[in-house]
């Protein structure tokens, strides 16, 4: 049954796949599970304690958040200008929110 559903999804044109519901970035609260989406506007390698880490800034029309994935230098498909959704719990760093190892979904270009 799951396979059948997957099959149906594959048959649909990409644009009609339902996108997950996202919270506007300005309404994101620290320490609450949220999903936000936006464009990748900055990518930086941020080695911590000698280990690689990838930090990106994600922006929608309402604000900007940072996401850090530890232990990796790049993630396939996550490129500058790409639209992605991330989900997880953010922590407040100064005046902006930062996610550590959030789940991510690549959105259609």
């Amino acid at each position: 049954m799951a396979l059948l559903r997957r099959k149906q999804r594959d048959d649909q044109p990409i644009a009609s796949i339902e996108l997950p519901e996202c919270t506007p970035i300005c309404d994101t609260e620290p320490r609450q599970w949220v999903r936000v989406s936006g464009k990748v506007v900055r990518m930086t390698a941020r080695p911590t304690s000698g280990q690689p880490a990838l930090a990106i800034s994600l922006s929608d029309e309402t604000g900007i958040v940072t996401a850090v994935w530890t232990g990796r230098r790049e993630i396939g498909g996550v490129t500058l200008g790409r639209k992605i959704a991330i989900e997880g719990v953010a922590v407040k760093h100064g005046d902006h929110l930062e996610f550590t190892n959030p789940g991510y979904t690549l959105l259609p270009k």
Partner: protein
Amino acid sequence: MNVIIAGAGSVGRYMAGQLQDSGHSVTLIDNDPKVVAQGQATRTPVGVTWCLGDACEVATLKSVGTAQADVVAAVTGDDEDNLVVSLLSKQEFAVPRVLARVNNPKNEWMFNDMWGVDVSVSTPHLLTGLVEEAVTVGSFVRLLSLEGGKARLAEVTLAEGSPAIAKELTDLGLPRESTVVAVLRDGHVVVPRGDTVLHQGDEVLVLVSGGVEDDVRRALVG
């Protein structure tokens, strides 16, 4: 503060008791039914909330309110478990402060922000530091690393001939990335001010960040 402690061995129970006494709200998690039952039956430490469960499971952490916790301390006798608890606390619950106990000093390199650890405490390293401190006068002893080694608490006992003796703190020329946090003299703690004058035999505690340790050593040891 709302504190969650993973691991109710002697370390965890002692911490829980101390923190509860100073007015914090403490939850102890352990996966040994005997330990939890005994703790609940004897009500020791007093006032602590007990939870029987595996702290390495998100569901357990969620059930004890980790999402609202101010501090999580992973102090089990197992380094792997401590790392998993730390990572989950940081990644899934964005806990502002995560402390972890290092059991085997060989594992200490992993206890950093990669694994969600803000502060790691390694008893063997601490003990080595203290032993060094006891046997060495006039040299620079590192006591504690903070923020994964970015800042260190170090101690120097001023020996005869130290360039710092009879000088005011402001005249020591310490780099900006360091500061004297306490001076121990004849069993008293002197709170350092700019005009505090150092004597021979003073134990000077210095907080050093960045790579200025050599400059601090030069100013205090010579």
